């Protein structure tokens, strides 16, 4: 039986945003070519891979050591930072069937939010990886807000609600705040669903607080989880399993 909800929260990284297209040769290669230094592509890709070995994964580099991408990989070359950020956005893809599904649910009057584990302090709209992705892919019109541990960004006016500051998905505190926030809008937590790929941050803590949960396996399949009510690999599958509660 399909789940009936009034609100859906979408995880960002490796769920709405699919990094498959962001290959080193494309991003680092394009930056070097735009800087007029195609001869340095291989050496810089090598340095970027060395950085990955230092910090474990590319997300960790981008979230916490972006300055080193510029200093170590690009030798502080003027303009590299701006081109790198632009190329990152250009090569990021949307999860399978995402926009079609967002359009379907907004047409039904469903309330939609992005719920992301953003570590970087929020600046103006479009300056962090989440809102810049939404802007560049034309997705802001589908969402009311972006909920992050740095605050909730209202996508209509860009204002930031700091009640969410310091609350995280992994600790579940972000879902506690969301439950209160939704209740104030007349939506009970049982009428809300969270979709994401990571069991520890998107599924289990949300389920424990009464949210309905959908595990997305379109990019990474983290395996079976009892806390996931449904499992999908393409966002379009949501149309069959989620209905708007009247």
């Amino acid at each position, binding site marked *: 039986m399909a789940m009936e909800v009034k609100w859906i929260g979408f995880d960002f990284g490796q769920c709405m945003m699919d990094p498959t297209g962001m290959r080193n040769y494309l991003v680092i290669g394009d930056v070097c070519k735009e800087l*007029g230094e195609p001869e340095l592509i291989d050496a810089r890709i090598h340095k970027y891979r060395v950085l990955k070995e230092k910090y474990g994964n590319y997300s960790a580099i981008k979230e916490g050591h972006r300055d080193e991408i510029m200093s170590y990989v690009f030798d502080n070359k003027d303009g590299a930072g701006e081109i790198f950020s632009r190329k990152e956005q250009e090569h990021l893809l949307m999860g399978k069937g995402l926009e079609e599904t967002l359009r379907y649910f907004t047409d039904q009057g469903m309330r939609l939010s992005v719920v992301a584990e953003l570590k970087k302090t929020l600046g103006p709209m479009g300056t962090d990886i989440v809102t810049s992705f939404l802007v560049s892919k034309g997705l802001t019109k589908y969402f009311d807000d972006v909920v992050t541990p740095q605050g909730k960004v209202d996508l209509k006016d860009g204002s930031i609600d700091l009640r969410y500051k310091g609350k995280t998905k992994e600790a579940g505190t972000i879902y506690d705040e969301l439950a209160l926030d939704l209740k104030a809008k007349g939506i009970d937590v049982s009428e809300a669903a969270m979709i994401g790929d990571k069991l520890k941050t998107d599924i289990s803590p949300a389920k424990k607080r009464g949210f309905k949960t959908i595990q997305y396996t379109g990019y990474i399949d983290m395996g079976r989880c009892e806390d996931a009510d449904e499992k999908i690999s393409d966002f379009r599958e949501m149309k069959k399993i989620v209905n708007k509660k009247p």
Partner: protein
Amino acid sequence: MSIPLRLVVEFNDGSQRAIDFSKVNVQIQESLAALGLCPPPITDSKSYLLLRWKNGWQEIVGLDKTQVELLRYYTIERTEEIGRMSLETGEAYPALLLVKRLPMLVESALLTNDAGSAMYTFSERTTTTEGGKTEKILYDKKDPESAVEDNGKANSWILELINSVKAELDKEGLIAEKLLSMGPDEKTTVYADISKALGIRAMERQEDINGFIELMLRRIKV
């Protein structure tokens, strides 16, 4: 091969400059060795990593570090899409160009030099799978459906490029003859602006951008 003592550069006026070979850095020694001019340098690394395969094959890697410890070793298995473009050059072997950037999205190619231009368009013709390899043919000279485009298309592409270069020259208050006669540093700066305006980047060597723009400037001059 005997041990090199001096590196000599001979100029067209008969003069020479030379230095002790021991002062030539390792990279240059390696380049000279690759040209067959001297034996490869013997580098003295601080540590060595010897790898042994299950079938007994062994390889050595020198590391210029004293304190070394293995952090992790892993493999990555992923389908890579690489374009291979072979070009008939009138020589014994064709030239082979690797297209690493989104090869399936390359739509067309313009081949041009002082003698003329030709344009080719790409679309998926045939797909063959052999074991784990999939080959998609986008152009094949032997396939009648892969015919080179008529001259008109190449000419209109060239004209479009020439017009863009002319527009950029107007902006900079220059004419083709004057730009061609400028010094290398000055020219390179202007060429960078022109290439930006044209939206053309060098695939492997930045000097290719400069050469291509000079070709367009010669066309304008004519």
